């Protein structure tokens, strides 16, 4: 069920990006899609009663070089978290690039309305 809500968020973003005609709104739609994907990825790695994948001194045995079983059995999945870190950076970068294109276009056309920005046919 939380997955479906996440997918709803994704679809809301898609709707916004496809239907809206204001450039900033389109950018917002794409941001919402990216949030949805990030949430979905982290949710995949969650387990009930889990703990964060950061090892405490108390949970590590330096002599045996072993991690306590309590950590191994309860830690949430670190891999999706690593992926989401990467993906957040990517979305921030593309946000910056997209906003610079918007700002430059605004300067040229004097509007954010894509129906009025129609030099190209087809």
């Amino acid at each position, binding site marked *: 069920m939380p997955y479906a809500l996440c997918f709803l968020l994704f679809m809301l973003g898609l709707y916004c990006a496809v239907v809206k005609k204001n450039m900033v709104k389109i950018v917002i739609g794409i941001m919402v899609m990216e949030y949805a994907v990030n949430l979905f990825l982290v949710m995949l790695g969650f387990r009930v009663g889990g703990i*964060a994948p*950061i090892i405490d*001194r108390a949970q*590590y045995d*330096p002599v045996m070089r072993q991690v306590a079983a309590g950590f191994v059995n309860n830690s949430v999945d670190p891999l999706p978290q690593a992926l989401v*870190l990467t993906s957040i*950076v990517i979305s*921030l970068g593309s946000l*910056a690039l997209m*906003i*610079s294109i918007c*700002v*430059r276009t605004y*300067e040229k056309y004097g509007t954010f309305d894509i129906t009025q920005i129609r030099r190209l046919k087809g």
Partner: protein
Amino acid sequence: MKGMTIIVKTISSWVKVLIVLFGIYIILFGHLTPGGGFAGGVILASSYLLIMLAFGREFVQKDLPLALDSKLDCLGALLFAMIAVLGLVLCDKIFFANFLYQEYLPGKAFDLISAGTIPLSNIAIGLKVGASLFLVIFLLSTFRRDTSVNR
């Protein structure tokens, strides 16, 4: 933009120090506690952003010229790539080998100097991210002023 009132200026020059320290802490302890190069870099960028908002663009421009900023950006990226390539050179032709941890400086778990290249990578990424994000915000905010003069 001239900057804001004296109260804002005084407070933000104090707060700036704290933010920078916090950013450096986040970067340096990225391998032990939550955080890391990326989050720390963004925090560093936002400290300069605060100064920019409080004191105006010219002030920051003097402190950290744009050319230097973009050089720092390239340098951070280059450092990180160099860490990768050093593995190719130093450690048995393996790209991205954690050569420090495996061969030279294993360190002790939970110490600040441990985990080989991971703290180094964090520093490189922090430098890169801080410089580049500040650069893009600076560009976006100065761009508008130029156009308003032109129009």
